[in-house]
Structure formats: C-alpha cells, structure tokens
C-alpha cells in the first residue's frame, strides 16, 4: 500500500509543472491567508515560526549534515542577524518612516552574519571534528556575552519595541528562496566538494578540491541564512535579548536537523515542521482546544490529570521523544535520503541506490 502510494507520489513529483504551480499557489495563499483571516492569528504565527525554523534547519544541515562538521554556532549567527536588522529598522532608518526598506534590513542582517561566518570558517581549516564543535560553541558564547556588554543594544536587558514587519508572504518568500539557494548549492560543483569534505577531507584535498574555498562558501552561506532567519525572527517576536539566542536555541536547531535526517533538505523541512508543530500541540491551551470535541465525561478528567500539566511536562516529553527517535532511527527520519522532487534530473540515478555510509566524524584508527 505504502509502496504503491510512494510510486504515485514519485510520479507526481516528476511533473515539471508541479513545483512552479505549488510555489505560485503557496505565494498567493500567503497573501490571502492574513488578508481574509483564513487561519486564526495563532495558526499564522505557527506557520511563520515553521518557515523560520525551516530556514535554520536547512542551513545548519549544510554544515552539519552535508559537510559533516558539527557546528553549534547557529544561534550566534541568528543573534547577529537579528540585532543587525533590528538596529537598522529601529535606529538607523526607522521602519516607521521607511517601511519598504525592511527586505534590505533583513539582507543586511544576513550579510553581517555571513561576515562573522568567516570567523568560524577560518579555524575550520586547521581544526576538525569535536574541536571545531568547541570553537563554534565558543563563538556562540562570545557573541552572546559580547552583546550583553554592548549598552547601545540594551545589553542583557535586550532590545524591545521592534516593529512587527515579518509577515506571512515575507516568510514564505525567504523560506523558498533560501531553500532553493541551498538546494542549488548542494547540487553544484561546490556541493560535490562539500560532500567530499564530509567523506574524507585529506583525500578530497588530494583530488584537487579546493577545500578552503568550499568551506568558506558553505560556512558563509549557512550563516547568511541563519542571519536572515534571525532578522525575520526579531521582527516577529518584537523583542530580542541575548538569552533568546543561547545554547538552548542551537540545541533546538540541531534537534530539528537530526530528527529530520542529515544531508537531506527534505528531511530538514520535515524535521523543522514536525518539531515546531509538535511543540505547539503540546501546549495545554492548544491541546485542550484540539480535544474539545470529546464528550465532557472523557474530556474533563483528561484535562484535569493530563492536559493542564502539559505546560511543564511538554519540555520533558520532547527530549524523551528525541531519545527514542535516535535509538530506533539513528540517522533521523530521512538520513542521507532525499525527496525526489529536490533532486535535479542528472542526479536522480545516483539517488536510486542507497548512499554509502557517511564517514561522519570517523574516529581515526590509532596504531
């Protein structure tokens, strides 16, 4: 049954008109939904969070999944993008006067994050594996405590009063554009270089892959996307502080990536969506309104003993679920596989066979 559905599904995905039609209708919907209140404000908010998280997960997957370097710095890049764009729309060119400059502010946030991406890319020439993980962690902590010491942006108190400029069409546009960008990068010549670095850096260097250049590009592209996601996030939340962008945020993005599966754009989209939606569903109010159709005899005790306690326990349930997924599905849901719709024509044959075991962080043999 499942095999049959997946055959039809794959055949459907191979239609050339499918992707443009889906994208166009998505864009139209993104405009129509807020205009005519097709979804509740809360549901729209969740949709926007899903979009931002998709950008974050797909871009982190470029470094962690495709390149095989364990990076923890994504929340730091997000913070740089968020603060840069927020300062631009609040203090430099107040968005109240120039609302049309919002996309430029978002781009500037991405560009600033990309520049800082170099700080992580340069040490990665020398350092590998767990040591690079620590450098990225140190980078995150430096960014965080750096912001805490800048009074201009509010220091540890944070920056409030950011205008709410992030809308559903903007999130849709940036999500599609950045996923498209990363997908094209991964399947380009540089993308092959990225994959070869994951398999064996020294060997790919010997095979005349310019590993430095490839790492530059991959880290900069990844941090650029994280910066843009941060800018959108800041103008959605309307309040940012260094505590928003701490290790917990990086961990959250890591979970999305590894839940969905490494080296898979489709997997990251799936992981980010599932993670965000599940975490929201576990909120007591959402759960209560979802189950309100149950007869009162069932609903009331359920509500009393289970749903009303979810507020505290959902953050316990989520890591447990992650551990279980990892135990039974160590590669994540779509690890090293890809939706056929994302694979370019010339690469489809390569994906028909299962990929070899990726040598992620392989422990060098000691002898």
């Amino acid at each position, binding site marked *: 049954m499942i095999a049959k559905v997946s055959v039809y599904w794959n055949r459907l995905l191979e239609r050339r008109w499918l992707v443009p039609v889906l994208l166009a209708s998505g864009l139209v919907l993104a405009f129509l939904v807020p205009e005519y209140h097709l979804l509740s404000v809360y549901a729209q908010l969740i949709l926007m969070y899903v979009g931002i998280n998709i950008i974050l997960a797909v871009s982190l997957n470029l470094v962690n999944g495709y390149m095989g370097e364990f990076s923890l710095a994504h929340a730091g890049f997000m913070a740089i993008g968020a603060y840069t764009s927020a300062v631009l729309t609040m203090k430099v060119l107040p968005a109240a006067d120039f609302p049309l400059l919002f996309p430029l502010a978002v781009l500037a946030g991405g560009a600033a994050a990309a520049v800082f991406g170099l700080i992580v890319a340069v040490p990665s020439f020398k350092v590998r594996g767990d040591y690079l993980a620590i450098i990225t962690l140190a980078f995150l902590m430096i960014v965080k405590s750096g912001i805490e010491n800048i009074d201009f942006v509010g220091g540890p108190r944070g920056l409030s009063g950011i205008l709410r400029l992030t809308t559903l069409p903007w999130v849709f546009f940036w999500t599609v554009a950045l996923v498209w960008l990363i997908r094209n990068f991964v399947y380009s010549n540089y993308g092959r270089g990225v994959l070869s670095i994951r398999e064996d850096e020294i060997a790919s260097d010997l095979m005349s892959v310019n590993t430095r250049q490839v790492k530059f590009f991959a880290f900069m592209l990844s941090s650029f996307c994280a910066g843009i996601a941060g800018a959108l996030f800041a103008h959605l939340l309307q309040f940012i502080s260094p505590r928003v962008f701490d*290790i917990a945020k990086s961990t959250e993005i890591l*979970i999305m990536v*590894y839940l969905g599966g490494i080296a898979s754009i489709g997997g990251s989209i799936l992981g980010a969506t599932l993670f965000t939606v599940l975490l929201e569903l576990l909120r007591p109010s959402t759960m209560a309104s979802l189950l309100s159709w149950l007869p009162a005899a069932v609903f009331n005790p359920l509500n009393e003993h289970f749903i009303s306690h979810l507020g505290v326990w959902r953050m316990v349930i989520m890591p447990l679920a992650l551990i279980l997924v990892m135990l039974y599905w160590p590669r994540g849901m779509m690890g090293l596989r890809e939706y056929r719709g994302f694979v370019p024509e010339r690469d489809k044959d390569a994906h028909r066979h299962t990929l070899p075991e990726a040598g992620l962080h392989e422990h060098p043999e000691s002898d």
Partner: protein
Amino acid sequence: MNEALIYWLQQGLNALQLGGIYALIALGYTMVYGILAMINFAHGDVFMIGAFFCFLLSTQLGLSFVPTLLLTMLGTGLLGVVIERLAYKPLRQAPRVSAIITALGVGLFLENFTLALSPYPKHIPTLLGNVTWNLYGLSLSSIQLVIISLSLVLIGLLDTIVHRTRIGMAMRAISWDKTYVPLMGIPVDRVISITFAIGAGLAGAAGSMYALAYPVIDPYMGILVGWKAFICAVVGGIGNIRGAMVGAFILGSVEIMVVAFLPSTFRDFVAFTLLMLLIIVRPYGILGKPRVQKV
C-alpha cells in the same frame, strides 16, 4: 607580609577552589571521551542532579556533610550507569553524531524533569560550620579548605585508579584500541559502565561542593558549568586525565583573574575568547598529542 602578595595568594586560593570543581566535572568528560570518543553532553546535568541530591539528602533526611557527599556520589554514579545503559549503549554501532544528539536529549530531559518537579531555585542549608581563619591577612574559610583538599584527594584517587589498577589498565586499553581489546578477555561493557559510574560520581561530588560554596541551585545551573568543564577537558587535551586537571586550573585562574580586574560581565567573553585562540594555536590541547590521519 606584602599586601600585593597577599592579594595574589587570595586570588590563587579562589582559583584553586573554582578549578577544583571544574576539574572534577572535566574528568568525567575526558574519561568518557577517552573510552567512547563521544562527548557526553548530559554530564553537566549530572552535576546539577548531584547538587539536587545534596539538597534533598540534607533537607529531607537531615544528614550531615560526609554521608550526604557519599550518598550523592553513589546516586549520581548509578544515574550515570543507567544513562549509559539505556541511552548510549544501544547506539555504540550507530554514527557518532546520533550518540551526541542523544546525549543532548538526555541533558534536556534531566534539566526539564528537575524543573517540572521543583520550579524554584533552592537554598541549601549550611552543612558545614563556616570558620574563617586569618593568616597574615590571608583569609581561608573552612569551606574553601574542604573543597580544595577534597577535590585534590579525589583527583589523586582517580589518577591512581587509572594508572595503577587493573580496571584502569583496562580503561586505557579500551581507549587505545576497541577492536582487539575484547579478544584479550577484557569485559568492555563492564569497564565502560565503571567509567561512567566513576565520572558521574565525581560530577556528583562536584555538585555537592558547588552547593556548599554557592548555596543557591536551580535546574539550569549545569549547562554553563558543564560547558566550561568540557572546555577545560579540551584545553588540557581531551582524553587525557592529567590534561583535564591542568585545563581546569587554568580556566579557574583565568576566570578569577578576569573578575578581579575587569567587570564580571566580561568573564565568559574572555574565557571563551582565550579558549578559541588556544584551540586555533594548539588544536590538540596542552597535554594532548596530535593524531596522525591516514587516507
């Protein structure tokens, strides 16, 4: 005595106290890394659980310091073994990243579970009478003395276990080569469990000492301290037990010096910048050896 000298000695004592706590946690990271080549991200939270055990034992059972410390070490040691058996052992053949993500999940679980049970920060009662001695202007409190001497004793004990006993020899053998060690009749699983028990027990001891020195504890306290201890392990050369101690005392001194001379908000900034520079200059840590990578 010279006032400047007294000042430096005082800061040195503070650094020894902080470094001792970091060292006890860092040893757990470095031992697990040495044996499994895996970063046990849940270790900082085991430290936090240790502090909460200490709180429970001293308030609910009214125990004094020594039984509290011993029971805490026993409890966290058991917790370490349980975590290893349930969460890490099934993943030993899986890609290394999945074990790391599982460890992150275990850490989050421990934090939020503790948070769900006790949402407010807790005050630990004074377990030790705090006496302060004054030597030529140098003040030394009994808590400081206990922390420094206890951590040195525990570190010495661990060093003896690893370098002088059969189980320590087995640990070093496993960290050397995992493929052929079982053929020599070494029970790998048991040795790994013992490693986790020792590491987690030391983290528990660090938790109780931390609770002595800084008596307010909360479920998220393990995150930053854990990361810093991990940094100590890396600075010294991860997998190297003596390196972890060196790294811990270096980081402890750096933090104390930053607080002494700069606004305390710069503490993390300076500590992490130094770490980043050190790793770039010496990627294998102070006492670590570079591995030769073959293609």
